[in-house]
């Protein structure tokens, strides 16, 4: 039953598998590719291809509400990334370095924000912000401080991911380097800053980019924690999508796709394992 010239285990060259691959990948990519392609379409209703244009991008650029939402999203992602990276790196460091009672319980606690359904975390934070009065308080604050609640929420679900990424990097660290540094008279802080941090750097960057994409992409938690006044890009797109399809959304979405895909590529490049002791 195997095709001529192929062994019984040579599944990779089976025709039906190749066909299946093509079908699945077409199904995965056709919606995204058409979305991007039709952002350059002149047709207003966006179904039939009428010609190439950049008008949709100009329109999206001149749409003040859309730009405001995009700016908010980028500022939130930027702030959340900084805080989440610092917190995540610290958690990774102490989980990597120390033995302590109830460690596996603590690790489970750290993994909770990763596993529980987003909608549960969203409504829990909504309750929290309303009951503590933070929901009403931040509205009066000047921009960008009125985004504080969303930043806080994003940090809470991003930094456990950063901790996972940084910790997997730390596993490859040769602790003799640390000892050597201390033997040579460096203080705890000097050793940390000059030996450990440079080694962690690829993990830190990869973790930061992961946090950035997670924050930029988040809809559900933002949807519940943002007040009625603050709008982020996904929340804005959600309200537009409910009203129908427009080439302007395609243009704005394409910009966001490019940002996240580029960030992901950099993160993946940096995450390719490096031999231990290097760096």
């Amino acid at each position, binding site marked *: 039953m195997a095709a001529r010239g192929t062994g019984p285990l040579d599944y990779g060259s089976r025709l039906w*598998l190749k066909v299946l691959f093509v079908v699945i990948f077409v199904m995965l990519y056709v919606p995204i590719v*058409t979305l991007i392609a039709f952002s350059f379409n002149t047709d207003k209703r966006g179904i039939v291809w009428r010609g190439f244009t950049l008008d949709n991008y100009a329109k999206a650029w001149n749409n003040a509400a859309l730009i405001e939402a995009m700016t908010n999203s980028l500022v939130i992602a930027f702030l959340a990334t900084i805080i989440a990276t610092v917190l*995540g790196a610290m958690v990774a460091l102490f989980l990597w370095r120390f033995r302590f009672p109830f460690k596996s319980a603590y690790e489970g606690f750290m993994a909770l*924000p990763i*596993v529980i359904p987003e909608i549960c975390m969203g*409504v829990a934070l909504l309750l929290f912000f309303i009951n503590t009065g933070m929901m009403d308080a931040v509205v009066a604050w000047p921009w960008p401080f009125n985004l504080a609640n969303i930043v806080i929420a994003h940090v809470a679900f991003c930094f456990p991911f950063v901790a996972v990424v940084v910790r997997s990097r730390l596993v490859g660290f040769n602790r003799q380097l640390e000892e050597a540094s201390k033997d040579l008279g460096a203080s705890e802080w000097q050793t940390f800053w000059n030996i450990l941090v440079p080694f962690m750097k690829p993990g830190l960057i990869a973790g930061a980019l992961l946090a950035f994409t997670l924050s930029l*992409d988040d809809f559900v938690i933002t949807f519940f924690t943002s007040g009625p006044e603050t709008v982020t890009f996904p929340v804005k797109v*959600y309200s537009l999508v409910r009203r129908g*399809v427009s080439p302007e959304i395609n243009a704005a979405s394409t910009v966001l796709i490019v940002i996240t895909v580029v960030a992901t590529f950099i993160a993946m490049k940096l995450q390719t394992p490096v031999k231990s002791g290097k760096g």
Partner: protein
Amino acid sequence: MDDWKGNSRVFWTLSLPGSLWLLIFFLVPLGLLFFMSFGEKAVIDGQMSINEIDFTGTLSNYLRSFDSLYLTIIWKSIWVSALATLLCMVIAYPIAFGICFAPERWKPLLLLLVILPFWINLLIRTYALIAVFRTQGYLNLALGWVGLGPYDMLYNNFAVIFGLVYVYMPFMVLPLYATIERLDKSYLEASLDLGASQFRTFWKVTVPLTLPGIISGTILVFIPCLGSFLTPDLLGGANAIMIGNVIERQFKAANDWPFGSALSFLLMYATFGALALRTLFARRSKGVDI
């Protein structure tokens, strides 16, 4: 590894900020949600208050979840998620299998192609599906060329299941890939040499040996499907409501927070149940788990 007492200053400096953040902005909110699920809307001057809640320790919110209306929705969320998970499995298994047996230089690219959509915003991917499936969408346009349609393909269970499969497929491919990649191919050869057919080898050798990956993938897809809100909201509309949409409605339009909290906790218990099952299976098949 050092003992924490050995350098407690460093230990506390490193552990406190993250722990406190998670405690205040995650555990406390969940605690509030838990208390809220045992609360009732306060009655002030004989009128049901809109936003005052009394914590009465009532179980009525949980009991209400078992009303036939909500039970139907919970049951539907479960079978829609289960069907989506099953479809993911049927599609992802050959994909993962194919990647494992693909030429070495193709593997990274094929894996990347599977993961890449996962990095694109969920909302944007759902929007892209709307553009394909809506009545004036690309699929109906294509069908129109061969004289079919147009059909209403959005706002029904089919659209939701398709959307869930589309969105969560990478979660299934990755764990399957990881286990199939580590599968000792000589077992397959042995089975084939001893006269078993390809089909029999697959069912009797490949599937049992890759069971840990199958279980991991099932849990990883089933959990987010069960808690999904965006996909049923945008693709299913009013006709295909899932538990996530009911929760959202309690916190936004219906303004019944205690009931919404109870539903959230039921959803969380279901999630923990699924995770516990996974640990149980992982323990049983020690060594090959991922």
